[in-house]
């Protein structure tokens, strides 16, 4: 009885509410304006980075005669300096090697682990999953000091191999978690059919589960690649010689010299160091977003 009485008034209230919400001006003020501000603020540092890299030094240090938001005479001098007077190409290749190496290693390890936990159910598999998840919560800031001594013990100090072996500590937990979610979404019936047809477990993994999990593998790969490209603290602690440094570390420790900062070269270095991940990311952006959100939803 009360329901039927309340119904009309609620309808009457709700209808103008939605109409007001959809009206143009309100939408502009409530959605587009704040969104525009967010985008502006989130992207400005990149714009500033890019524009600084192409500015001649005279313009960089003189805001009175030039509009700092624009370049009147763009130059490639900073990038040229970076590529030919520093070890920048070397740093780029080292970083690429480390990122590809650690990504491959973690993908293999975490695919197998995720398959074992999610598909080869065994007693305690949820606890193994939980343990791997907890490993993700151990931040590098706690580990870098003892890890430095471990790396020295293994004779890997100052070697990119140390980074390839150490990065999986934060990549494997994430990828495993991501892939468990992906394997879970693959119907178990497919594997059962294969089992009935006499396939072995590893045939199932190779012929059925892995091909179906390719989007998950791509997401995990992209995520691992960007994370290892961006890693800083281990690379700073374990690599000593200038030639073996990764891009983020090298820019900060090799290019920042003296009291007068070469802002043009620094920003050009940052821009070039960001571009590979940005391009890589733009190619697979949907996978990346789904991996980020998928991992959270798990």
């Amino acid at each position: 009885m009360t329901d039927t009485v309340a119904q009309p008034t609620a309808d009457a209230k709700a209808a103008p509410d939605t109409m007001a919400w959809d009206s143009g001006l309100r939408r502009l003020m409530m959605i587009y304006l704040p969104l525009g501000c967010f985008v502006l603020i989130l992207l400005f540092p990149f714009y500033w980075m890019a524009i600084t890299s192409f500015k001649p030094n005279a313009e960089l240090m003189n805001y009175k005669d030039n509009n700092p938001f624009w370049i009147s005479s763009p130059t490639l001098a900073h990038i040229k300096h970076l590529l030919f007077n520093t070890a920048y190409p070397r740093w780029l290749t080292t970083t690429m090697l480390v990122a590809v190496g650690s990504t491959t290693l973690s993908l293999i390890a975490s695919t197998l682990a995720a398959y074992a936990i999610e598909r080869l159910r065994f007693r305690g598999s949820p606890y193994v999953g939980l343990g791997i998840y907890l490993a993700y919560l151990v931040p590098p800031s706690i580990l870098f000091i003892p890890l430095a001594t471990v790396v020295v013990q293994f004779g890997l100090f100052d070697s990119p191999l140390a980074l390839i072996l150490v990065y999986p500590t934060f990549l494997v937990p994430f990828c495993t978690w991501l892939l468990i979610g992906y394997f879970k979404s693959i119907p178990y019936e497919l594997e059962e059919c294969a089992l009935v047809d006499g396939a072995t477990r590893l045939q199932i993994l190779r012929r059925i589960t892995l091909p179906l999990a390719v989007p998950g593998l791509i997401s995990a790969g992209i995520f691992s690649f960007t994370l290892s490209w961006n890693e800083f603290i281990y690379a700073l602690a374990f690599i000593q010689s200038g030639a073996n440094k990764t891009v983020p570390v090298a820019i900060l420790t090799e290019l920042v010299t003296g009291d007068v900062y070469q802002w043009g070269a620094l920003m050009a270095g940052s821009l070039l160091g960001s571009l590979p991940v940005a391009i890589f990311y733009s190619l697979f952006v949907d996978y990346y977003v789904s991996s980020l959100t998928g991992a959270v939803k798990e």
Partner: protein
Amino acid sequence: MTSRHSGMVRNHQTSGAQMRTGKSRDSGFDSAHRPGMTLEPRKDKGPMSVTALSTHGAIARQPSWLVRLFDYKPFLIVMCLAPAIGLLTVFLTYPLGLGIWLAFTDTTIGRRGTYVGLENFQYLLTDPLWWNAVFYSVVYTGVATFGKFALGFWLALLLNNHFPFKSLLRAIILLPWIVPTVLSALAFWWIYDPQFSIISYLLVDVLHWRSSNIDFLGSPWPARFSLIAANIWRGIPFVAISLLAGLQTISPSLYEAAMLDGASAWQRFRYITFPMMMPILAIVMTFSIIFTFTDFQLVYAITRGGPVNSTHLLATLAFQRGIAGGELGEGAAIAVSMIPFLVFATLFSYFGLARRKWQQGEAND
């Protein structure tokens, strides 16, 4: 090909025997490091699998085949888990234990230390720099997390509307999260330059709101807040995209029902959006708190703890003492002193998570 297969089988049998004695993890470690091997299709032993594709035969031998399955599955599990568990044990669990041990020794670079008990921690408790780092770590985490979640939630709500180029916008917004933190931190360093800061230029020369440049990094409190602002800038995309994923899982019928009942926009947010988002908020916030509290890159890149050590976080202080200063024991003690905070954050996460049946195997087994 066939020889490799038979090798696999032999390998399997020996390791399977070790499995039962509980030593399987070590034995599996070596062979599992060659991934190609574990991915090879394993040929079943015995004549049964030869006619595996005949349905009639499959039904007839089902029981014994299942027995065999259970016979080799433990080995397969060990092989599959060995690379991941091995890597994590050697480079995560062992260093974690070693770090805790180092915190109780006076190890320096190049010299094995001896056990000194709680001396390192006693020293830290009397060290104003350590207290300063604890204070700033807590302030940094608190303010930055609040800022990230307030702005990130707002951005997520904005992105949850329908408008053109939505996926493009979502992609662009994630950029600060993708780009190496140190490199964007360098851009912030340049933005915070005392002389040529673009913000100062805007405020002084364009808007005429101030008469002098802002000294962003020259004195303690402005430097602290400048770093927090950079951290918020970097954290917003992650929070926004994660929360957006959560928002999209909320069924629209809930809002329809609430609107029929006459709920206002605020009531819909307060009684539907917010409670439905609680589990995901708890997870994302735990991650955010842990990684903000242990942040290193931003501070190291922009101020290196200065001016006058006012912006040291525990991680940068640990690096300065442990690696740069060579006092491994003391650095490890500083790192270990972060653990109580992290345990607190993890427990928070656990109880947030426990409300949904997140563990696999419970819901769909």
